[in-house]
């Protein structure tokens, strides 16, 4: 883990909570950080300047557990393996700021999050659905959409 990068991060985002994951290989990242969505543009800027790319962005529906959506960002480098995970909570109805102005890859990732969860990103150049049909009135990955019918075995009845 590069210390200068973390120092820059802490300067920009003082209240960042960081957990070191180097000793838990299954986590698959160097460190997990918990931040607020308002910090995302500043964080993206730090990683952009350090030569990282936005490898992955997705969302978790945690409404049953805390009443929030949780955005998951993965930043990784194009030359040496180093991955940072950011978790940012979003209240339903709130619009987190977009990262698409800094990373082009965020454009499609954020459209996918909107499509699947209905979380809109403020300032996104084209906040439309990407995978489901135009004009659909559902967000398929919400936990209350198409209520799960686990199979008997999956239900623990096997």
């Amino acid at each position, binding site marked *: 883990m590069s210390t200068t990068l973390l120092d820059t991060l802490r300067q920009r985002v003082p209240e960042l909570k960081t957990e070191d994951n180097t000793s838990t290989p*299954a986590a698959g990242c160097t460190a997990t950080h918990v931040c607020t969505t308002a910090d995302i543009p500043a964080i993206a800027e730090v990683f952009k300047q350090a030569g990282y790319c936005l490898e992955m962005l997705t969302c978790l529906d945690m409404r049953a557990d805390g009443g929030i959506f949780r955005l998951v960002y*993965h930043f990784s480098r*194009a030359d040496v393996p180093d991955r940072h995970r950011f978790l940012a909570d979003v209240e339903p109805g709130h619009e987190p700021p977009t990262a698409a102005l800094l990373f082009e890859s965020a454009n499609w990732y954020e459209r996918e999050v909107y499509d699947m969860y209905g979380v809109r990103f403020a300032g996104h150049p084209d906040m439309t659905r*990407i995978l489901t049909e135009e004009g659909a009135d559902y967000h398929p990955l919400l936990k209350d959409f198409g209520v*799960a019918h686990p199979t008997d*075995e999956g239900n623990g009845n096997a």
Partner: protein
Amino acid sequence: MPELIHVGRDEDRDTYYLNMGPQHPSTHGVLRLRLLLKGEEILEAEPIVGYSHRAHEKMAENRNYIQFLPNTSRIDYLSGMIYNIGYCQAVERILGLEVPERAEYIRIICCELNRISSHLLWYGTLLMDLGGFTPFLYCWDDRENILDILDEVTGSRLTYCYGRFGGVTMDVNDEFLQNTLDFCKRFRERLPEYETLVTENIIFQNRCKDVGVFDQELAQDFALTGPILRAMGHKRDVRRDEPYGIYDKFDFDIPTLNGADTFDRFLIRVEEMHQSLSIVEQAVSRIPDGPVMAPKVPRKIKPPKGEYYFAVESARGHFGMFIVSDGTEIPYRIHLRTPSFANLSSLRSVLRGTMIADTVAILGSIDIVLPEIDR
């Protein structure tokens, strides 16, 4: 998305929209490209995806970890084996399951054969898009050999479900190993033929050289991975950077080139087939005897609560699985970070300013698989 107002203006009489796809033989799946053209020059290009969305990620939340196994090879049907084994390895790493060494070797052999067969399909179809029919038949012939070999041991030809948590379903026999070696020998003799037939062909070179050059900043902007990134001079490969399985025990090169054009992406994949052959040969010569399943695999897979990430190198690049467990038998969330999704989104930038005739060459050289984009 550009507005239609350009069209029909007197000074812009040559500007018009053209839809390529969704049913087009050169889009390799159901992809629609919305092209804004001025004469034959592309002003704007917008890939429109989602036609084969099957909600694999939703399915993952409706079944337990074992039941999701058959889904994995249907995400990217050309790298089915790599995805299937990769998913097993992801869950094994979470559970801390040790896999017997023989199973690890079998996995490597099967995954690398799968990589070659995926590259062969890409090779044949790229050439067919560019108007050459003969290479397609060459590729199909060789690919058929691989499918036969894998069919023998896995029971399927495309959507494999060979991996299990803790090993593989069936042991391979000596005939499988001999067939694999025979294939390697034959394919090594065929590759020079491919070279004289295609690589040295001046018409092919003229269609590909300096066509669809990726600017260096695109690598970071679009999070590009795989052969595209390596054709831009970046020595990135998950097999080397974050070794999984027993890839660290094998001797192979990560080919890179600096041209970032269609021809370089072509050469990178051809070289990768050579490297995969070498990995297969090393694995066959060193494969140990022993069991192919770990002795104690829990019947109910319950990963501890937490967030996990595991990546493998598919034929197209970095395939990552982000698994969230709430401690039950059913995954809370499995997000699939597929390489084609990020790679295809760069098409907007790459196609801008190129000629319409080059679209199929550029699209073909990116090597997309639509079902893994739509998931």
